[in-house]
């Protein structure tokens, strides 16, 4: 960023006159804290100076004659402290071009609607600070998915793959509701599937996956992660786990993963996708190993 960083005098750490020369742990911590806050000061100044952020947004609309050929539109959005990529495109839509189209809903990384391709990497618009990005910020729809309009992509295929792994609890043998009995999971088992349950179906991983781009039948990281959540859940019976592994061990299941770690890099919820896929590969091998 082009903002100049000035040390505000009022923010100086309190100096103990008797401690001059030697740096006390407290002073060191204060210094560290202040250094950590430099970025914030820079943001404050950028806001006060009325700086704008230059964003380049992908535009395409099959229904408008001059937008049928995809292009990039430039917007200069006034910077605000804590502004995210989503805030910027929302400002551009509200103030400059009301036809700018993109999906968004909760604005707090829960709904998974606003995964964009920002500066060459898949990320959630609402979770990405503009101050962390190099300008001009290039905002595109997710790659490897058909663009419907502007930043909106067709998610049908992604959802198909998600449903293909039967992402729902299947055990018939549940305790009778009349007994008011609970079906409990051990804390250890809960920990094991904790990360996999954080998926918000944003599709960033699938879009980043080089293999999924070339093989449309590949389940993709998100679907395999969803299958992991259920396959590793102890409350389902062994039979159902085997049924799940039969889906996963097919040609276009877990074995298509070539451990590029692209999905793990882009996942906005920090799910260790590759780790989960690798564990399912091992489970699939173990299931088929026979010593006789």
């Amino acid at each position, binding site marked *: 960023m082009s903002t100049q960083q000035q040390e505000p005098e009022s923010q100086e750490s309190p100096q103990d006159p008797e401690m001059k020369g030697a740096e006390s742990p407290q002073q060191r911590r204060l210094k560290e804290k202040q250094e950590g806050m430099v970025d914030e000061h820079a943001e404050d100044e950028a806001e006060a100076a009325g700086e704008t952020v230059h964003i380049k947004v992908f535009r395409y609309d099959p229904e408008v004659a001059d937008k049928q050929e995809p292009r990039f539109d430039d917007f200069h959005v006034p910077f605000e402290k804590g502004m995210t990529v989503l805030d910027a495109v929302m400002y551009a839509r509200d103030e400059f071009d009301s036809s700018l189209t993109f999906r968004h809903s909760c604005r707090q990384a829960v709904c998974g609607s606003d995964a964009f391709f920002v500066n060459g990497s898949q990320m959630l618009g609402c979770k990405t600070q503009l101050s962390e990005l190099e300008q001009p910020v290039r905002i595109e729809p997710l790659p490897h998915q058909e*663009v419907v309009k502007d930043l909106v992509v067709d998610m049908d295929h992604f959802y198909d793959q998600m449903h293909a792994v039967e992402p729902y609890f299947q055990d018939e043998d549940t305790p009778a509701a009349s007994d008011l009995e609970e079906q409990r999971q051990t804390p250890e088992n809960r920990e094991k599937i904790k990360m996999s349950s954080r998926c918000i179906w944003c599709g960033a991983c699938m879009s*980043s996956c080089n293999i999924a781009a070339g093989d449309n039948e590949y389940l993709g990281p998100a679907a395999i992660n969803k299958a992991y959540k259920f396959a590793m859940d102890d409350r389902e019976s062994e039979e159902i786990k085997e049924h799940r592994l039969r889906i996963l061990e097919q040609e276009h299941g877990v074995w298509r993963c070539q451990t590029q*770690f692209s999905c*793990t890099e882009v996942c906005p919820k920090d799910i260790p996708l*590759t780790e989960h896929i690798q*564990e399912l590969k091992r489970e699939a091998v173990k299931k088929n190993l026979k010593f006789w």
Partner: protein
Amino acid sequence: MSQSYNRGLIEDFSRWKEFSAGMWAWIFHKFTGWMLIGYLFTHIAVLSSAIAAADGQTMMLAGEEVNAYTGTLQGLESLFIVRVLEVGLLAVAVFHILNGIRLLMVDLGVGLTAQDKSFYASLVLTGIITVASVPTFMAGVGL
């Protein structure tokens, strides 16, 4: 939805500057794998001169009559470009081995959070081993 736009292979190799460590490891592993397969064929071609040597075929090398196998190998080894290619072959093989070990660890689920570091480590090690091998490979050959 009347129509949609397929952006094709966007993000693929034209965006190589934005690739992450794991992606580079994958590309290098594929590349070195194909190089090693290519080398196998030339290796077989060179070694097959041993069949000719067994049949008693000889050739002239620097005014001396030697058997076909020795002649072929010595003739190749006297070429500067072959020595350079040998260093390249070593680099390719070492990287493939080291990254192969890394992938083995990944398959076993060991140290997945350090996968980028282990890739850089295998790159650096490959570089060191390759540079260290240059005196041996280049001994006794002029341009």
